[in-house]
């Protein structure tokens, strides 16, 4: 029985190691599920926003590096826009879903995490800080986001993504109001 018990413990340990967020890509929430949770059973069809000109400059100022793809898709319904964006924490991209409701963040969720440490940013005690956040004139968040020890780079990455999502949402609303 002892032998069986120790084998079970070893198997449990092995499972814990394999499923540890620190090893490889960890899908916390499938992007399709994120959209379904954000918009209900039938999410809207995606739209495309080109990241060019002033928008690209502004995105690159926030990120501190190239904006990457020339266009990004978003989902929009009744004043809410959802964005699935990626930003590197230390070495690997963090896939993040962000819902913006009339210029304020309604939800931010870590969808796929690939870094070896810093996965604590997925937890609501951290992500809830973004709820209601808006951009000020300097394109900074209107509030301070408390960091997490050992997850500084992931915290910064998520903060940058929140600012980018708010900026892109503003561009979408600008385009709609000018039509």
């Amino acid at each position, binding site marked *: 029985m002892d032998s069986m018990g120790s084998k079970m413990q070893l198997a449990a340990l092995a499972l814990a190691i394999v499923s540890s967020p620190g090893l490889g890509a960890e899908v916390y929430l*499938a*992007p*399709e599920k*994120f*959209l379904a949770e954000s918009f209900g059973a039938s999410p809207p*069809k*995606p739209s*495309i926003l080109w990241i060019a000109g002033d928008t690209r400059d502004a995105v690159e100022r926030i990120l501190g590096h190239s904006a*990457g*793809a*020339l*266009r*990004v*898709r978003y989902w929009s319904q009744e004043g809410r826009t959802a964005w*699935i964006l990626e930003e590197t924490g230390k070495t690997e991209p963090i*896939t993040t879903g962000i819902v913006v409701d009339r210029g304020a963040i309604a939800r931010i969720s870590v969808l796929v995490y690939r870094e070896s440490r810093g996965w604590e940013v997925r937890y609501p005690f951290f992500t809830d800080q973004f709820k209601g956040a808006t951009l000020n004139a300097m394109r900074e968040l209107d509030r301070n986001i408390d960091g997490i020890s050992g997850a500084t780079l992931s915290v910064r990455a998520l903060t940058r993504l929140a600012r980018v999502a708010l900026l892109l949402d503003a561009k979408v609303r600008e385009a709609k109001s000018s039509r």
Partner: protein
Amino acid sequence: MNDVHFTPTKEQKNARLDTPGSRNGMLGLIVWHRRLGLVTAVIVLLLAVTGVLLNHANRFGLDQVQVTANWLLRWYGFPPVEKPLSYRVGDYWVSWTGSRLYLEDKPVMRTNTAPVGAVAATGEMLSVAFPDMLVVVGPNSDLVERMGAESLPGKLERIGITDRGMLVVATAQGFFTADANFIAWQPASMQVKWSRSEEAPPALFERLSTAQRGRGLSVERLLQDLHSGRIVGSWGPWFMDAAAVVFVILAITGINYWWTRRGRMPVFPKPNGDRRKDE
């Protein structure tokens, strides 16, 4: 009282050098001079050749020429370049190697996942399919868009093109085709020419290798390391320092020999037999 100056004549000098003790000492010195000279000759040649080349490295363009010998690159610690997974798309090659996607030899994006195919369906844009991602690339290797699983009809197994130029993807749920912006996917049942990987041309492989290794190892750098001894590691410069000390010893013993034997026939010691008989 006048000092008495004694100046030895040439014969007296030669007689003094011809004493058994001095002859043995001189002959020993000559033997060691020759041995050290022989041993260090290779290093002298190496230093001379590399020194001349380094002096004119810019003129010869040696700072631009890259070393391509894999064994040398491995010696320098350059990681081995993986053979790329390549797809021919019209006149272009899309390749994936070293966790990067390339259009020709220009990097497009980083991804740890291998593509399953690439086609040109929408104008000049190329579409590269991954199991959980579809990437649109511009002709200048610009990343136009990266669509995740949420924008796809399922896990992509293959990508192809119809006779009419329509893009089709194969998933476990069947074949699907999309509009130009991949907004809506529709089931499809048509003849498809699927994208298949091909071996990249050797010239492209070389360019991809260079792209992965950055500027790599120039011939000038190799010559510098050969000249300084650093090519063999941290102890190389110490070895070259020791060789330099030997060169100094050779110079001193050579000058000494020449000075003491000046005006006389050179002595060529033989390894055996009575050297006196040879004079």
